[in-house]
């Protein structure tokens, strides 16, 4: 040991001290901090911590009305899954349905009543109390109602079905207004009209994809956007591998949709000529004697003009293909023809769909398993009667301009986004002195509101749904709150009830729940006695548990005969397009993307979901045939202006192998200017530049009837997509096998009915 003098000693002590200090700090820094255990004040009955609880409800992301089961833990919604016992989706659920959670937990939700004092569109909202907000609205309504001028109040809601719709009806009556409009951009107006005209049916028929063996789809993207995608997907799968025989699917559309990709044949007919093609097939079927009805002569006469030769020439589909199509359609039993989206959104939309109905009729698919089956009257109200088409909204705008409307009540409808700029709808709304919005989000339309009375999301509130397209029998489901409301919001129904009370027209219910229960009580009373439970309460709890209700009231074998003048009225004119073909060489086809009509654009999961066909995320694009692109000297990512007679939007080119050279396609959904952090100022909205070409029969805008031209800007952007190279260079990654005889076991669950 060396002799340590004082200095050394101090050094030693110092070193030791520092060392110890360092040691303590070290361990404290790597130690886990203390957490807290916060117990309940009052233990809830319906869940225990660490154990998941499931609630059955209804998905309201689109109008298909799928049943959902929501997994909750510690009172928070964790996951949405399809309700296996619900006949519409049988456990399946689409991406948007999954993303419903992000509607509930969206950071951009309106957290309480707001007042936009600083002027419309300023986005400068101030928090107000519910009472304040309601009084502001009620006072105005009260004055108008008292003066008997309730008609100066307009209610514009997103498509609501079930008893909530009835509640709104009652509210409208109470106010004395008939300006109660449901608005969904993608509501199948043409289909309703066509079926009304040909079959005389109020309801949409049920298209039995599951049992058909030959599907002819005229532009209907039944797997992604059309009516009830999940149910169609189930049917598709069932038909492909459910039975002993593999169903054959043909898709006729100018731009390949997901359904087109899944189909066995994809036939790019000239846009708008689907109806002519259908009649061509009909002509062949009748001419070749496949149809033996006693009215065959009438048919022959009306169809005589549509010879295969002419049709081939007009539709740009080879005659042989047409003949072969007609043959297989007539010979394969059962077969089914459906039409929608691309085919319906033309100036001749309704005629086209009528033609398709005729085709079904002539091939004998009406009232057949695997064909067109008529739906019974649904248990609850559906909203088609009130659905506003383009013309209705135009009228609304007109009356707003001429100052006939004092108050507009908005509920989750966003027409400012989906109406073409040419319609001048936005400007018209601004004429209305007072606008109140019940939306949960500030979207383009709500941005015009003076007062925002935010409503619950569908996961927080009561409701019910009776799927419009149905499943061949009456079916409905109750949507119950699965979590306690996050924010200071109210259920739409409760707000309306409150308003009604304040304007002195109280309704028989105190809450939405009561209203719903009341409605279901009626259904319970009507339900046939043998399956009746002993009390409504037990029925109600059973209903909530099952999450679905159905009634064995199929109209399987029913068919209908068109009368002489119906037959005579059949005929499809060539489609009309806005703009001169010389100046505007391309037809623009805006199609529904995963974001639906744009309402899902504020959900990050949907923004990050690669597009089904192009795997693009975050943004919009212009789809163009490789040949066209080559001619125009454009490559992927080149920024172009898509100019229509009405205006222009700017988006990058995406070379798309499966689209007609004379057609340009753009996805709907992006291009929001004011819809939360995830959607705003991203991509472009093709609907803006649509020309107001209207299908006179349906009164709805023909969204595929706008011609455009492409103007290169010389700029280039990188399209954000997850795909590298979308060609497998002979690497057999996706392997295929020929032949039709595949007897794989079914993966589909047979449709179940919960008896009442």
């Amino acid at each position, binding site marked *: 040991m060396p002799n340590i003098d004082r200095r050394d000693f101090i050094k030693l002590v110092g070193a030791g001290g520092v060392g110890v200090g360092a040691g303590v700090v070290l361990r404290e820094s790597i130690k886990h901090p203390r957490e807290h255990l916060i117990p309940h004040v009052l233990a809830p009955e319906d869940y225990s911590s660490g154990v998941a609880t499931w609630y059955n409800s209804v998905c309201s992301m689109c109008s298909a009305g799928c049943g959902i089961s929501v997994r909750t833990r510690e009172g928070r919604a964790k996951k949405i899954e399809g309700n296996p016992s619900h006949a519409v989706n049988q456990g399946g659920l689409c991406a948007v349905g999954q993303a419903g959670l992000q509607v509930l937990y969206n950071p951009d939700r309106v957290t309480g009543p707001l007042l936009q004092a600083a002027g419309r569109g300023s986005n400068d909202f101030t928090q107000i109390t519910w009472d304040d907000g309601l009084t502001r609205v009620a006072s105005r309504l009260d004055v108008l109602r008292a003066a008997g001028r309730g008609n100066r109040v307009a209610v514009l809601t997103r498509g609501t079905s079930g008893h909530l719709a009835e509640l709104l009806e009652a509210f409208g009556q109470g106010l004395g207004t008939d300006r109660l409009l449901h608005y969904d951009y993608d509501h199948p107006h043409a289909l309703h009209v066509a079926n009304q005209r040909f079959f005389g049916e109020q309801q949409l028929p049920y298209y039995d994809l599951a049992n058909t063996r030959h599907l002819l789809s005229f532009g209907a993207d039944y797997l992604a956007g059309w009516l009830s995608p999940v149910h169609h997907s189930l049917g598709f799968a069932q038909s492909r591998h459910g039975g002993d025989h593999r169903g054959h699917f043909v898709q006729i559309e100018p731009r390949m949709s997901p359904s087109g990709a899944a189909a066995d044949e994809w036939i790019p007919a000239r846009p708008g000529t689907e109806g002519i093609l259908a009649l061509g097939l009909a002509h062949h079927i009748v001419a070749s004697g496949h149809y033996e009805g006693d009215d065959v002569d009438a048919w022959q006469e009306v169809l005589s003009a549509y010879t295969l030769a002419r049709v081939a020439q007009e539709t740009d589909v080879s005659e042989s293909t047409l003949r072969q199509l007609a043959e297989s359609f007539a010979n394969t039993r059962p077969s089914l023809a459906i039409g929608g989206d691309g085919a319906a959104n033309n100036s001749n939309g309704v005629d086209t769909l009528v033609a398709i109905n005729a085709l079904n009729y002539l091939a004998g698919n009406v009232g057949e398993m695997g064909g067109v089956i008529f739906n019974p009257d649904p248990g609850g109200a559906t909203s088609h009667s009130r659905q506003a088409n383009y013309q209705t909204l135009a009228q609304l705008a007109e009356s707003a301009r001429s100052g006939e409307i004092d108050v507009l009540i908005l509920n989750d409808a966003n027409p400012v986004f989906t109406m073409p700029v040419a319609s001048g709808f936005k400007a018209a709304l601004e004429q209305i002195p007072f606008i109140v919005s019940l939306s949960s989000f500030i979207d383009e339309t709500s941005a015009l509101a003076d007062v925002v009375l935010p409503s619950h999301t569908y996961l927080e509130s009561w409701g019910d749904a009776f799927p419009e397209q149905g499943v061949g029998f009456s079916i409905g489901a109750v949507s119950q709150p699965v979590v306690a409301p996050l924010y200071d919001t109210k259920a739409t129904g409760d707000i309306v009830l409150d308003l009604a009370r304040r304007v002195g027209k109280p309704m028989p219910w105190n809450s939405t729940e009561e209203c719903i229960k009341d409605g279901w009580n009626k259904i319970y009373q009507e339900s046939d006695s043998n399956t009746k439970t002993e009390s409504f309460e037990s029925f109600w709890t059973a209903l909530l548990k099952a999450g679905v209700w159905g009634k064995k009231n199929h109209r399987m074998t029913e068919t209908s005969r068109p009368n002489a003048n119906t037959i005579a009225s059949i005929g499809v004119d060539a489609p009309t397009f806005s703009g001169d073909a010389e100046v505007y060489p391309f037809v623009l086809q805006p199609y529904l993307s995963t974001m639906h009509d744009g309402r899902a654009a504020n959900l990050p999961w949907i923004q990050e979901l690669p597009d089904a066909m192009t795997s693009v995320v975050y943004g919009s694009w212009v789809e163009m045939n490789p040949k066209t692109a080559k001619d125009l000297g454009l490559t992927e990512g080149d920024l172009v202006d898509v100019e229509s007679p009405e205006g222009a939007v700017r988006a990058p080119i995406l070379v798309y192998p499966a689209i007609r050279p004379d057609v340009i396609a753009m996805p709907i959904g992006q291009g929001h200017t004011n819809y939360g952090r995830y959607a705003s100022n991203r991509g472009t909205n093709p609907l803006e530049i649509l020309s107001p070409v209207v299908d006179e029969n349906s009164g709805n805008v023909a969204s595929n009837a706008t011609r455009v031209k492409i103007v290169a800007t010389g700029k280039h952007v990188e399209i954000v997509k997850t*795909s*590298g*190279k*979308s060609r*497998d*260079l*002979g*690497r057999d*990654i996706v392997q295929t096998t020929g032949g039709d005889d595949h007897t794989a076991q079914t993966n589909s669950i047979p449709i179940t009915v919960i008896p009442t």
Partner: protein
Amino acid sequence: MDGELNQLKYTDIHNDVVRSIVETGPNYYIALITAFAFTLICFFFPWFYQLYYGIGAAGMNHPGVWGTYLASFIFWIGLSHSGTLLSCVLHITNSSWRKAMYRSAEAMTLFSLVVAAIMVMVHVGRPWFIHWAAPYPNQMEMWPNFRSPLLFDVMAITTYLTGSTIFIYMGSIPDFAAVRDRTQGWRNTMYSLMSLGWRGTDTEWHRLHWAYTFLAVLIIPLAVSVHSIVSWDFAMSIVPALHQTIFAPYFVVGAIYSGTAGIVTVMFVLRKFMDFGQYITELHFDNLGKLLLVLSLLWTYINIVEVFTGFYSGASGEIEALNYRLFGFYAPLYWEMIAFCAIAPLLCAFKSFRTSFVPMLVLSIAINIGMYTERFLIVATSLSRQYLPDAWGLYVPSAVEISILLGTFALFTTLFLLFVKVFPSVSMYEVKETMESPKKSTPAASEGSPA
């Protein structure tokens, strides 16, 4: 060299070398501080930022999950070869021209290895858990996975680092002793310790000789194994254009190649700035030049074989990957590499070129640039063109990565500068050995001894 060294006496060497350690002018310190500053700014700051933000600070993505960090790792490992390896080979074949330069060559090995080890830390996503790759008993009862090529690496590099450290240290014990006697104060203390009280007795010399030889024998296979193992990090995968049997020899040759070039660079620097002109002579550059020529031919050969077999295989994956390397996004780099590593070295065929210093310096630097490119291409091209075309992607280094890459060179320089200050950068006793021992000149000696 005899021609030149004969004029010198033992004392002169002694003085030169000791001077290089004891008396350093301000220039040295300026150089050191600059190098260190660069290291801080270009290497450590970006790295700390990356530690804070995550590997996202670099340009890597999916599928390009490996990038310049790994390339640098291989590069520095490669540079480390030839230092010790060359010196061992030459020691065993005892070729005398090695002796003037091997000390600094070995130092190069040592510091390249250190830098390489640090690059591993930079590369991994959670360096604060890197110790899990080392086998030590722990309460989790978890051990590293000895089947992993990466763990081979860990083992090999640890061994190699230990080996070359010991090798260079043992070789310089006598020189420490020599310096010890010429220094005072803390230096003296330091060198007394480092020289372990070496006296230079016949016994000590004898033992040293044997130990040194054994080390050399052990280290040669080690060095070969090290870079083979590094190559297996790639070759053991089934990625097209990486899954190659030829990779081990390819990497070893490449390593020695770049290492030799590195030595040329270092030689030049020593010669220029520490004026060791008399010891590091044209002869060395001449020999190194020949070596470079041979190696470059070997390297080119292996490259051709790789491309040939790749295309000959006819497998879509292989062909696509090679196509991409030769003509794809990174193609300019590829051809740059060919120009620097396959064509330029052919100049070494001419003695006049080999014996002229500056051109050799330029060539050596060019070669190492080329070799770095090679490593980068191996990582980047193969990863961006794999089996599933839909998952193909592109990898471009980020600013942070490039800065860190430059920083590694600064780091290496710093370490090397410290080395020349502490170590006799030319081995005195071996240089003395190469000279003729002094003849007896005194008349007293002429009477002869009774032996």
